[in-house]
Protein backbone atom coordinates (compact mmCIF):
# COMPACT_ATOMS: atom_id res chain seq x y z
CA UNK A 1 0.00 0.00 0.00
CA UNK A 2 1.52 3.27 -1.06
CA UNK A 3 -1.12 5.75 0.12
CA UNK A 4 -0.04 9.05 1.61
CA UNK A 5 -0.38 9.47 5.38
CA UNK A 6 -4.00 10.36 6.21
CA UNK A 7 -3.50 11.50 9.81
CA UNK A 8 -0.03 13.01 10.18
CA UNK A 9 3.22 13.35 8.26
CA UNK A 10 5.33 13.90 11.33
CA UNK A 11 5.34 12.78 14.93
CA UNK A 12 7.79 13.92 17.57
CA UNK A 13 8.07 13.61 21.30
CA UNK A 14 10.56 13.77 24.13
CA UNK A 15 11.09 11.39 27.04
CA UNK A 16 13.88 12.59 29.32
CA UNK A 17 17.12 11.90 27.43
CA UNK A 18 15.40 10.44 24.37
CA UNK A 19 13.96 12.34 21.41
CA UNK A 20 11.73 10.82 18.78
CA UNK A 21 11.31 12.41 15.36
CA UNK A 22 9.41 10.31 12.84
CA UNK A 23 8.58 11.56 9.32
CA UNK A 24 5.91 9.45 7.60
CA UNK A 25 5.73 9.11 3.82
CA UNK A 26 3.20 6.29 3.73
CA UNK A 27 -0.08 5.46 5.39
CA UNK A 28 1.34 2.15 6.58
CA UNK A 29 4.82 2.29 8.04
CA UNK A 30 6.33 -1.05 8.99
CA UNK A 31 9.15 -0.49 11.47
CA UNK A 32 11.53 -3.44 11.25
CA UNK A 33 15.22 -4.23 11.75
CA UNK A 34 17.56 -5.98 14.16
CA UNK A 35 16.70 -6.66 17.79
CA UNK A 36 17.66 -3.97 20.32
CA UNK A 37 17.52 -1.04 17.89
CA UNK A 38 15.02 0.78 20.14
CA UNK A 39 11.70 -0.17 18.54
CA UNK A 40 9.88 -0.98 21.76
CA UNK A 41 11.45 2.01 23.49
CA UNK A 42 10.02 4.19 20.70
CA UNK A 43 6.65 2.50 21.17
CA UNK A 44 6.73 3.34 24.89
CA UNK A 45 7.50 6.97 24.11
CA UNK A 46 4.59 7.22 21.67
CA UNK A 47 2.25 5.40 24.08
CA UNK A 48 3.03 7.97 26.73
CA UNK A 49 1.63 10.61 24.36
CA UNK A 50 -1.77 8.88 24.31
CA UNK A 51 -2.53 10.71 27.57
CA UNK A 52 -2.46 14.09 25.84
CA UNK A 53 -2.84 13.36 22.11
CA UNK A 54 -6.23 12.02 21.03
CA UNK A 55 -4.87 11.23 17.55
CA UNK A 56 -2.70 8.41 18.86
CA UNK A 57 -3.79 4.85 19.73
CA UNK A 58 -1.20 2.29 20.84
CA UNK A 59 -1.67 -1.46 21.03
CA UNK A 60 0.69 -4.24 22.07
CA UNK A 61 0.68 -7.76 23.55
CA UNK A 62 -1.38 -6.55 26.48
CA UNK A 63 -4.24 -6.23 23.99
CA UNK A 64 -3.96 -9.83 22.79
CA UNK A 65 -7.38 -10.77 24.18
CA UNK A 66 -9.16 -7.98 22.29
CA UNK A 67 -10.69 -8.32 18.84
CA UNK A 68 -8.17 -6.13 17.05
CA UNK A 69 -10.02 -5.95 13.74
CA UNK A 70 -13.23 -4.89 15.48
CA UNK A 71 -11.33 -2.31 17.50
CA UNK A 72 -9.79 -0.87 14.32
CA UNK A 73 -13.16 -0.83 12.59
CA UNK A 74 -14.53 1.47 15.29
CA UNK A 75 -11.52 3.80 15.22
CA UNK A 76 -11.31 6.85 12.96
CA UNK A 77 -8.69 9.52 12.36
CA UNK A 78 -5.88 8.08 14.47
CA UNK A 79 -2.26 7.10 14.15
CA UNK A 80 -2.49 3.50 15.32
CA UNK A 81 0.81 2.19 16.62
CA UNK A 82 1.05 -1.58 17.08
CA UNK A 83 3.99 -3.27 18.79
CA UNK A 84 4.29 -7.08 18.66
CA UNK A 85 2.43 -6.80 15.33
CA UNK A 86 3.81 -10.09 13.98
CA UNK A 87 1.84 -12.02 16.59
CA UNK A 88 -0.97 -9.62 17.45
CA UNK A 89 -2.31 -9.16 13.91
CA UNK A 90 -4.14 -12.05 12.30
CA UNK A 91 -4.94 -12.30 8.60
CA UNK A 92 -8.29 -10.48 8.93
CA UNK A 93 -6.79 -7.55 10.85
CA UNK A 94 -3.97 -7.26 8.33
CA UNK A 95 -6.33 -7.18 5.38
CA UNK A 96 -8.47 -4.57 7.15
CA UNK A 97 -5.41 -2.40 7.79
CA UNK A 98 -4.31 -2.66 4.16
CA UNK A 99 -7.62 -1.15 3.02
CA UNK A 100 -8.29 1.28 5.90
CA UNK A 101 -8.28 4.80 4.52
CA UNK A 102 -9.44 6.45 7.76
CA UNK A 103 -6.52 5.65 10.03
CA UNK A 104 -2.77 5.67 9.69
CA UNK A 105 -0.57 2.82 10.92
CA UNK A 106 2.87 2.36 12.42
CA UNK A 107 3.42 -1.38 12.74
CA UNK A 108 6.41 -2.71 14.66
CA UNK A 109 7.34 -6.11 13.27
CA UNK A 110 8.93 -8.06 10.46
CA UNK A 111 6.12 -9.81 8.62
CA UNK A 112 4.43 -7.75 5.87
CA UNK A 113 2.10 -10.62 4.91
CA UNK A 114 -1.45 -9.62 3.88
CA UNK A 115 -0.66 -5.92 4.22
CA UNK A 116 -0.02 -5.57 0.48
CA UNK A 117 3.19 -3.83 1.47
CA UNK A 118 6.13 -2.99 -0.77
CA UNK A 119 9.62 -1.85 0.13
CA UNK A 120 8.17 1.66 0.31
CA UNK A 121 6.44 0.62 3.53
CA UNK A 122 9.54 -0.78 5.25
CA UNK A 123 11.55 1.40 7.60
CA UNK A 124 14.19 0.93 10.28
CA UNK A 125 15.20 2.99 13.27
CA UNK A 126 18.33 5.08 13.33
CA UNK A 127 19.64 7.00 16.31
CA UNK A 128 22.07 9.84 16.75
CA UNK A 129 23.38 11.81 19.68
CA UNK A 130 22.03 15.34 20.01
CA UNK A 131 23.95 16.91 22.85
CA UNK A 132 23.28 14.65 25.82
CA UNK A 133 20.16 13.21 24.26
CA UNK A 134 19.63 10.38 21.77
CA UNK A 135 17.29 11.06 18.86
CA UNK A 136 15.42 8.26 17.07
CA UNK A 137 14.20 8.69 13.52
CA UNK A 138 13.16 6.32 10.74
CA UNK A 139 14.76 5.67 7.36
CA UNK A 140 13.90 3.31 4.49
CA UNK A 141 14.89 -0.26 5.29
CA UNK A 142 17.59 -1.54 2.92
Amino acid at each position, binding site marked *: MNGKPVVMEHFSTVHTSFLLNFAFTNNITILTG*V*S*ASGKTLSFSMIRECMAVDEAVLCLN*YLDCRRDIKELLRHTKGKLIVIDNA*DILLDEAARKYISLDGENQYLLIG*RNPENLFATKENLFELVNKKVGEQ*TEFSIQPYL
Partner: protein
Amino acid sequence: MITIYKDKKDIPIHMEYVEWNDLFFNKNTALKLDGRAAKIIEQIDEAKVISKFQIRSKFHETVVDVDCLSTGCKTVLNVLYFPDKVFCIKECGENALEALYRLSRGAVYSNYAMIPFDMTRVCAVFGESSREIDDYEILKEWWHHER
Protein backbone atom coordinates in the same frame (compact mmCIF):
# COMPACT_ATOMS: atom_id res chain seq x y z
CA MET B 1 21.18 -27.92 17.88
CA ILE B 2 17.76 -26.30 18.17
CA THR B 3 14.53 -27.92 17.03
CA ILE B 4 12.19 -25.97 14.76
CA TYR B 5 8.44 -26.47 14.43
CA LYS B 6 6.48 -24.77 11.64
CA ASP B 7 3.09 -26.19 12.56
CA LYS B 8 1.73 -25.86 16.10
CA LYS B 9 0.05 -29.26 15.69
CA ASP B 10 3.50 -30.89 15.66
CA ILE B 11 4.52 -29.55 19.07
CA PRO B 12 4.47 -32.53 21.47
CA ILE B 13 1.69 -32.39 24.05
CA HIS B 14 4.17 -32.44 26.93
CA MET B 15 5.94 -29.30 25.63
CA GLU B 16 4.32 -25.97 26.52
CA TYR B 17 4.19 -23.40 23.71
CA VAL B 18 5.09 -19.81 24.69
CA GLU B 19 3.97 -17.01 22.37
CA TRP B 20 4.70 -13.88 24.43
CA ASN B 21 8.40 -13.94 25.14
CA ASP B 22 8.55 -10.63 27.03
CA LEU B 23 5.99 -11.77 29.54
CA PHE B 24 7.54 -15.22 30.02
CA PHE B 25 11.01 -13.72 30.46
CA ASN B 26 9.92 -11.16 33.04
CA LYS B 27 8.07 -13.77 35.11
CA ASN B 28 10.40 -16.76 34.74
CA THR B 29 13.72 -16.49 32.91
CA ALA B 30 14.83 -13.28 34.64
CA LEU B 31 14.92 -15.21 37.92
CA LYS B 32 17.27 -17.85 36.47
CA LEU B 33 19.89 -15.69 34.72
CA ASP B 34 23.49 -16.68 35.42
CA GLY B 35 26.87 -16.37 33.73
CA ARG B 36 25.56 -17.92 30.53
CA ALA B 37 23.32 -14.92 29.86
CA ALA B 38 26.03 -12.23 29.83
CA LYS B 39 27.56 -13.19 26.49
CA ILE B 40 24.18 -13.38 24.75
CA ILE B 41 23.05 -10.05 26.22
CA GLU B 42 26.27 -8.41 25.07
CA GLN B 43 26.08 -9.96 21.64
CA ILE B 44 22.47 -9.04 20.87
CA ASP B 45 21.74 -5.92 22.91
CA GLU B 46 25.31 -4.63 23.32
CA ALA B 47 24.51 -4.31 27.02
CA LYS B 48 26.56 -5.40 30.01
CA VAL B 49 25.21 -7.37 32.94
CA ILE B 50 26.12 -5.54 36.13
CA SER B 51 24.03 -7.42 38.71
CA LYS B 52 21.44 -10.16 38.85
CA PHE B 53 18.59 -7.94 37.63
CA GLN B 54 20.41 -4.99 36.09
CA ILE B 55 22.18 -4.23 32.81
CA ARG B 56 24.09 -1.25 31.50
CA SER B 57 22.22 -0.24 28.34
CA LYS B 58 24.02 0.78 25.13
CA PHE B 59 21.88 3.92 25.15
CA HIS B 60 23.62 6.47 27.39
CA GLU B 61 25.10 3.57 29.37
CA THR B 62 22.29 3.95 31.86
CA VAL B 63 21.62 1.15 34.32
CA VAL B 64 18.21 -0.40 33.75
CA ASP B 65 16.27 -3.47 34.83
CA VAL B 66 16.64 -6.63 32.72
CA ASP B 67 13.03 -6.16 31.62
CA CYS B 68 14.45 -3.53 29.22
CA LEU B 69 16.24 -6.17 27.16
CA SER B 70 15.00 -6.49 23.58
CA THR B 71 12.30 -9.04 22.83
CA GLY B 72 14.75 -10.87 20.56
CA CYS B 73 17.30 -11.18 23.36
CA LYS B 74 14.62 -12.29 25.83
CA THR B 75 13.49 -14.94 23.35
CA VAL B 76 16.98 -16.41 23.02
CA LEU B 77 17.39 -16.46 26.81
CA ASN B 78 13.99 -18.13 27.19
CA VAL B 79 15.06 -20.89 24.80
CA LEU B 80 18.41 -21.26 26.58
CA TYR B 81 16.98 -21.61 30.08
CA PHE B 82 13.83 -23.56 29.21
CA PRO B 83 14.76 -26.18 26.60
CA ASP B 84 11.65 -28.17 27.54
CA LYS B 85 9.32 -25.48 26.12
CA VAL B 86 8.71 -24.18 22.59
CA PHE B 87 9.06 -20.43 22.00
CA CYS B 88 7.72 -18.26 19.20
CA ILE B 89 10.63 -16.63 17.30
CA LYS B 90 8.66 -14.22 15.11
CA GLU B 91 9.96 -11.20 17.02
CA CYS B 92 13.66 -12.03 16.62
CA GLY B 93 15.86 -9.78 14.49
CA GLU B 94 18.82 -11.08 12.47
CA ASN B 95 21.20 -10.58 15.43
CA ALA B 96 18.96 -12.53 17.81
CA LEU B 97 18.44 -15.32 15.24
CA GLU B 98 22.20 -15.75 14.86
CA ALA B 99 22.57 -16.30 18.60
CA LEU B 100 19.49 -18.51 18.72
CA TYR B 101 20.70 -20.88 16.01
CA ARG B 102 24.01 -21.34 17.84
CA LEU B 103 22.35 -22.72 20.99
CA SER B 104 23.16 -26.35 21.67
CA ARG B 105 19.51 -27.20 22.40
CA GLY B 106 16.04 -25.70 22.65
CA ALA B 107 12.82 -25.60 20.65
CA VAL B 108 11.17 -22.83 18.62
CA TYR B 109 8.15 -22.19 16.42
CA SER B 110 7.32 -19.98 13.46
CA ASN B 111 4.93 -20.70 10.61
CA TYR B 112 7.16 -18.71 8.23
CA ALA B 113 10.90 -18.69 7.66
CA MET B 114 13.05 -17.02 10.31
CA ILE B 115 16.64 -17.87 9.34
CA PRO B 116 19.88 -15.98 9.95
CA PHE B 117 22.19 -15.65 6.96
CA ASP B 118 24.94 -17.27 9.04
CA MET B 119 23.00 -20.36 10.10
CA THR B 120 24.11 -23.57 11.77
CA ARG B 121 22.58 -27.06 11.76
CA VAL B 122 19.01 -27.37 13.05
CA CYS B 123 16.46 -30.13 13.47
CA ALA B 124 13.36 -29.33 11.40
CA VAL B 125 10.16 -31.11 12.44
CA PHE B 126 7.06 -31.43 10.30
CA GLY B 127 4.37 -34.02 10.86
CA GLU B 128 5.87 -37.40 11.61
CA SER B 129 9.26 -36.55 10.11
CA SER B 130 12.26 -34.66 11.36
CA ARG B 131 15.47 -33.90 9.51
CA GLU B 132 18.71 -32.11 10.16
CA ILE B 133 19.39 -29.14 7.88
CA ASP B 134 22.52 -26.99 7.76
CA ASP B 135 21.91 -25.02 4.56
CA TYR B 136 20.04 -21.68 4.37
CA GLU B 137 18.34 -22.37 1.02
CA ILE B 138 17.28 -25.91 1.97
CA LEU B 139 15.84 -24.72 5.27
CA LYS B 140 14.01 -21.90 3.50
CA GLU B 141 12.62 -24.41 1.02
CA TRP B 142 11.50 -26.67 3.90
CA TRP B 143 9.71 -23.77 5.57
CA HIS B 144 8.00 -22.52 2.43
CA HIS B 145 7.15 -25.56 0.40
CA GLU B 146 7.12 -28.73 2.46
CA ARG B 147 3.48 -28.83 3.55
